[in-house]
């Protein structure tokens, strides 16, 4: 419940504050967001599995974000930034899908 409230609060804050992203962070923010989404879905799935752990969630959330951004940053430095972005997005997308499938199986038994 509090998590949902937090999510809503974050969205509202983003809408109200309307911050501008620093230029050198702009390529990494979408990746970080997708990684965080992955972590969120993973957390939800773990919760439904009954193995949710705040510590793991925190760790995986932060590490996912950082690692994803880091990979893309590295790709940028190597000149394959856009390809690396695509790769990361694909991997995270697959994970999100599988997590969503597991969640669906939990909730709807189908």
């Amino acid at each position, binding site marked *: 419940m509090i998590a949902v409230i937090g999510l809503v609060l974050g969205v509202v804050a*983003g809408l109200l504050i309307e911050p501008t992203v620093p230029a050198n962070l702009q390529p990494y923010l979408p990746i970080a967001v997708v990684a965080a989404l992955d972590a969120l879905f993973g957390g939800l799935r773990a919760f439904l*599995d009954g*193995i949710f752990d705040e510590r793991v969630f925190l760790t995986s959330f932060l590490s996912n974000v950082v690692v994803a951004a880091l990979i893309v940053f590295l790709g940028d430095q190597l000149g394959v930034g856009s390809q690396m972005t695509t790769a990361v997005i694909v991997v995270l997308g697959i994970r999100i899908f599988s997590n969503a499938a597991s969640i669906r199986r939990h909730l709807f038994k189908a």
Partner: protein
Amino acid sequence: MTTADGRRDAAHGGDAGAAARASDGTPDETPTDAAVPHDRAVPDDRAVPDDRAVPDEHAPRDDGPGHHAPDDDARGGGTGPEHTPDDDAPDALGHDDLAPDDAAPADRAAGHRGADTLPPDDGPAIDPRDPLGLGDIGLDEPDAVAARSPVEVGTAGEPDQTVDVTRRVREVDDDHGDVDETVTQHAATTTATTTATTTASSAPPTTGPAVPVIAADPADTVADAASDGAGRADADAPPVPERPAGERSAWARLAHAMRPRTTTGQLLTAALCALLGFALVVQVRQSTDTQLGSLRQDDLVRLLDETTTRADELAREAADLQREHDELLSGSDRQQAALDAARRNAATQGILTGRLPATGPGVRVTLTETAPSIRAATMLHVLEELRNAGAEAIQVNDLRVTASSAFTGAPGEIVLDGVTLSPPYRWLVIGEPDTIATALEIPGGAVAKVRTDGGRGTVETLERVDVTALRELPEPVHATPVPDGR
């Protein structure tokens, strides 16, 4: 999650019971049955204890049972059948650690008991059945673990309790810490036999196989889930999703979670979710606001190239079209000019050749004679005088006078271009009236010649003279116009 932990512990206890119970009936069978549910039955993990089973070599080295047990557990978690290499969020690492911890001390505890009854030589022989040694928790340590596990199962104990169990198990382990490690390991490998000797009468043999079956079923389920990429390292979780509880618990758990509670974990999760929502909105705004701002340098360069190329193409196309437009425009102008010129030319030539009627200022010359006296030469003289004076269109009586006209015949019946004229001769001339009149009447001029012939001539200047007579000219047969440019 707490429920799961409790259940997992319970499962261990159940396995242990199964192993123990089955062992009194068929010692050989029990290990294999129990091995099915236990994912931890990876040979590698248990190989370590087996090595240690050789007393003389490894016993001195493996002094600290506490160190080895975690290692085994860690590997067991990592190499379990369900191990997906990723660091999935759902991975309850703490639980992974916990469950094996429960097991390892149990092994040792069991070993402690069984050391007396079993020869060390059996160790390698029963090697594959090692994991079963885990199951002895409940039976061998009734004071701590066994008493605890049922409570957890029933009350869906908090995670703290699970940790508590582990701690207690460790304490138990410590209690037996003075036991020779070698002996412990040997005993662990032969748990089935050991438990058989210790708890032969505790349970009916029929329930033994039943427990593993139940455990194996969830194992499939979890493995299925793991194949989706869930990546749960806790391979020993099979007992967790108990069927009846799991069916209700997904929604029930959600509803339960919706109840506002302010624990640290909840707040932390909420903070992370808030961060995610914030970043999400920012990114969405960012990507909708500025399309180019978030692009990389090479993307921008490519975009710039494309735009430049496109602009060049368009500029070329525009230039082509402009040129074409100019050409068409000038062409039509030229054509119009040519048409106008031709029209003017046609008019001029039409007047000159007598094909067109003409009007304008001029003079009217009337030559009269009382008797046939005016000669054709005199008429010609008058005509030449008119032309010298700039006459542009000339008509005599009803005949147009052109360049090819000729006066012939005798006086009184002068023939002009084959048509006989009858006096009086009326000339209609378009030209400068005063000039023509003056020219005609100069002394010794045309009119003077007419008087010399015996006729009379009068010249009137008119504001407007209409030369209406036309002359049809035959198309030239032999002469053709010289082409342009010559």
